[in-house]
């Protein structure tokens, strides 16, 4: 018989076995973020021309490790924790096959460590993308394969939990929207990992000389089926967390289940096609393929993101207005709990993801516009806005909620925690904006010295405009601010689960890393099935605009989008004609 506890503060259900797994995965993710953050500082200080901290070979090694720890290990560990939470806790169901889930966790852990070891041994400075025919050490690939297998087990544990919940009738009606979003993330993850297997297993065999060669173009197409889709897992997961936080912090109800779920369906069908964003400047792949895939089949996944961009803040507005904050367009927003990092983190994430990450992603993913952006510093500028301001900031915000609820500790330094999301988002916004600015001037990504000192010595000169160098300095400053903000997050969260005041007497150090609480916290009685809230008396949709403030904000986004999009066409039209 499975055992569970009901959180006395939130009423959330925690399966005894599932709870340990959520903690273990979240903690492993945070450790990866710590590694990624330290490396981020080194990268930032090296690309800051006035400091130029690391030597070239160290820089490329550190950049490789930064990419994998930040983009893959931190995020996917945390996402597995979210999958377990969204299935087991939200559906009040025991987690399926906890032993398999632990096996998956251990494989991920071994894989992450193995790949890091390969990188820091110095023989695998191949960047996250490890483009064939550039070769890494065999355990670089093997670590990634083990990590992917572990993550796949996590996905099946999630799906298995959904099956059990349905069979055992632990909930009534359809699964909650947040669980549906997690399902979307899980589905995208399955495709991601399958693509990864198709390309990483041959790469591993090639690195131990069992396969003669890997076709470089084939590698690119299939690798990006994994590389880009893995970031689409994040989009789905982070949007689910946005809905969850709107519900937790405001009691917000989705404006329309139908609209939000259809938007997730568009993600399931089309989001992954955008792996083609990376192939737009490649030889031989036809424009038909490029146009169809890069546009997610007529931008239907962009439509989905625009919908979530309206419905997440919109649902908050509706909830706030019901509480009486009805003055003007924006009283609901002015009087939001800006000092609560769970809310402020998510709100900053929604805004920056939309304005900085979303718009630029679509612009640079336009087949022809990509010619003036491919592989420039604009690219990391864009994805620091999507993955860091979007996903990482969202997950940080969620952690503040999980510390008392899941870890049963009080948060330390609440005064600093209030400021943490602003500091982190501020630094990252500066970094992202000026990376994109420098990229527009042609500054390459993954480059140790845009002053070209060594080439100049040999008689080959090139200088970027002075403004590019200035912008790289600002990127450096942004990175330092963001690292301070990120460091604060690590101090607060790790400090809380180690030293924070125990809300539950038995929430000791080992409990913070995955052991269950004292037996007396759990019960084996069958819980009540989880039900939807009572339907509103005055139904949505009848009375015109319920969220006019959000609608105005959404229009601002759309206008910005249109203007910026055509500015880039204008810029493209000024370069040398080619065809």
């Amino acid at each position, binding site marked *: 018989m499975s055992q569970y506890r009901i959180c006395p503060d939130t009423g959330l259900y925690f399966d005894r076995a599932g709870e340990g797994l959520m903690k273990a995965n979240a903690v492993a993710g945070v450790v990866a973020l710590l590694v990624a953050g330290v490396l981020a500082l080194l990268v930032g200080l090296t690309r800051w021309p006035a400091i130029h901290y690391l030597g070239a070979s160290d820089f490329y090694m550190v950049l490789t490790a930064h990419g994998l720890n930040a983009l893959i290990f931190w995020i996917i560990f945390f996402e597995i924790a979210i999958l377990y939470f969204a299935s087991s806790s939200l559906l009040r169901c025991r987690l399926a096959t906890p032993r398999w889930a632990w096996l998956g966790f251990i494989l991920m852990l071994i894989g992450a460590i193995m790949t890091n070891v390969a990188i820091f041994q110095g023989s695998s400075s191949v960047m996250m993308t490890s*483009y064939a025919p550039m070769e890494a050490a065999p355990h670089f690939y093997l670590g990634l394969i083990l990590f992917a297998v572990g993550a796949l087990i996590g996905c099946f544990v999630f799906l298995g939990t959904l099956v059990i919940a349905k069979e055992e009738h632990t909930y009534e009606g359809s699964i909650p929207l947040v669980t549906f979003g997690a399902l979307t993330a899980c589905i995208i993850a399955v495709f991601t990992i399958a693509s990864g297997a198709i390309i990483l297993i041959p790469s591993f065999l090639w690195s131990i000389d069992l396969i003669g060669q890997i076709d470089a173009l084939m590698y690119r197409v299939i690798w990006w089926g994994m590389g880009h889709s893995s970031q689409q897992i994040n989009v789905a997961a982070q949007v689910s967390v946005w809905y969850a936080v709107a519900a*937790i912090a405001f009691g917000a109800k989705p404006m329309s289940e139908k609209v939000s779920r259809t938007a997730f369906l568009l993600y399931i069908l089309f989001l992954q096609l955008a792996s083609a964003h990376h192939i737009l400047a*490649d030889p031989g792949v036809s424009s038909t393929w490029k146009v169809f895939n890069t546009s997610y089949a007529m931008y239907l996944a962009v439509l989905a993101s625009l919908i979530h961009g309206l419905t997440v803040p919109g649902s908050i507005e509706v909830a706030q207005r019901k509480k009486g904050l009805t003055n003007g367009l924006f009283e609901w927003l002015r009087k939001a709990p800006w000092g609560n990092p769970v809310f402020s983190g998510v709100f900053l994430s929604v805004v920056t993801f939309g304005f900085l990450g979303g718009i630029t992603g679509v612009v640079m993913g336009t087949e022809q516009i990509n010619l003036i952006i*491919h592989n420039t510093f604009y690219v990391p500028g864009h994805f620091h806005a999507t993955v860091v301001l979007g996903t990482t900031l969202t997950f940080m915000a969620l952690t503040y909620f999980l510390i008392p609820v899941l870890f049963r500790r009080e948060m330390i330094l609440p005064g600093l925690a209030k400021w943490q999301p602003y500091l982190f988002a501020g630094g990252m916004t500066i970094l992202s904006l000026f990376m994109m600015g420098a990229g527009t001037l042609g500054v390459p990504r993954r480059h140790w010295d845009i002053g070209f000192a060594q080439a100049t010595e040999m008689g080959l000169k090139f200088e970027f405009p002075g403004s590019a160098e200035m912008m790289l300095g600002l990127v450096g400053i942004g990175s330092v601010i963001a690292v301070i903000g990120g460091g604060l997050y690590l101090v607060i969260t790790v400090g809380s689960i180690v030293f924070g005041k125990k809300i539950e007497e038995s929430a000791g150090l080992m409990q913070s890393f995955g052991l269950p609480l004292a037996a007396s916290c759990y019960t084996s009685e069958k819980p009540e099935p989880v039900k939807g809230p009572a339907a509103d008396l005055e139904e949505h949709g009848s009375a015109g605009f319920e969220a006019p403030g959000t609608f105005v904000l959404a229009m601002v986004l759309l206008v910005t989008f249109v203007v910026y999009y055509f500015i880039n066409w204008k810029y493209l039209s000024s370069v*040398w004609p*080619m065809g």
Partner: protein
Amino acid sequence: MSAILPPSEQVWWKTPVGKEEIVWIALALTWCLIMFAMMPIWHVYGKQNLSNEAYKTTPVQYEAKVKAMVEQHTIRTQSVGEMDVPVVAPPAGSDVYILGRLWSWYPMLEFKKGESYRLHLSSLDWQHGFSLQPININLQIVPEYETVITITPDTSGEFTIVCNEYCGILHHTMLGKIYVTE
């Protein structure tokens, strides 16, 4: 707390949708279709498109083509370190070749402003990034594949090819030159 709870209604698909959502979806979908249309439109009316012309090749075969062009059309050399790199001025409209290798672009080219050239690009070893500065045209260079683009320089001066795909320890030293004369 309801996005984390099942929907209120058993049949939620039939719940009416709010007006702002409907208006927003209509606007957003329109915008999506406009953006989608822009790409084919630019293929017809725009002047900057990436050609689909490419061939499967080998480093040996490609290098031979580069050498043949260099032998025929070199006009001078430019010293880079201890090497003398040929500067090649092929006739307008002809096939011209650049190869990327660890860690240089070879040879240097000289174009005439306003003329068109069929520019071939490939790599002899790893992947490279052809980033023409300060024009800012960026192409992926993949070994064993030969890309052909027809390019028409419409500004004159000295242009630099920066490698913008990481290609190992001296990646940041990999520069090439294209000169465009009036």
